[in-house]
């Protein structure tokens, strides 16, 4: 049961993200440029996540709450 959930015909390579067909999995060789781009993309995603976590923590501090209030005040004055 659920055997159709296993082993999709195409899966991204874990190292370079390229879509690799089942028949080519044993022979697939990562393209170095693609591998570096994939690695950079993953790093940038995690850095963004870290930034968002840090921003959320900062906005929860008294100083952060003041900046939210001040920005909202400016927005309302401009409207």
């Amino acid at each position, binding site marked *: 049961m*659920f055997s159709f*959930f*296993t*082993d*999709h*015909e*195409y*899966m*991204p390579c874990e190292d370079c*993200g*390229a*879509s690799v*067909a089942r028949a080519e999995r044993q022979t697939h060789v990562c393209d170095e440029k693609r591998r570096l*781009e*994939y690695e950079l*993309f*993953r790093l940038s*995603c995690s850095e963004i996540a870290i930034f968002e976590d840090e921003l959320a923590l900062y906005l929860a501090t008294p100083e952060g709450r003041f900046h939210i209030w001040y920005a909202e005040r400016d927005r309302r004055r401009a409207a």
Partner: protein
Amino acid sequence: MTDDAKRIPRQMIEEVYNKGRVDVIDELVAPGYVGHDPALPQAIAGPEGEKEIVAGYRSAFPDLVITIDDQVAEGDRVVTRWTARGTHTGDLWGIAGTGKEVTVTGTSIDRIQNDRLVETWSNWDALGLMQQLGVVPVMAQN
């Protein structure tokens, strides 16, 4: 009409989906168009609805390329079997870009009237897409 009818779905794929020329949609899609896709929460309504869908997919997969594997036409209907490939770098239905390249197959049946698409029924490998993006786990083989 059959061979001429194949031209319209082909143009939708090659010009609109592959090149992002959403302006061509107004020429190819009738105002009352309805697109049925079980992967979407609601039917695609008219040219504007189709533009939104194309923009969404191209934003998630900027290098999207769909190839036509087969086409069969009869009467006012054209069946197109296709393969889509692209790299997931933008948000897709709330799934942040993963950088992964995916390959997905599907089949669409288009109904054509007066050289325009009036209705489409699509079925494609949405589960396979989710597996490739790592959203749905692939069970280990025994």
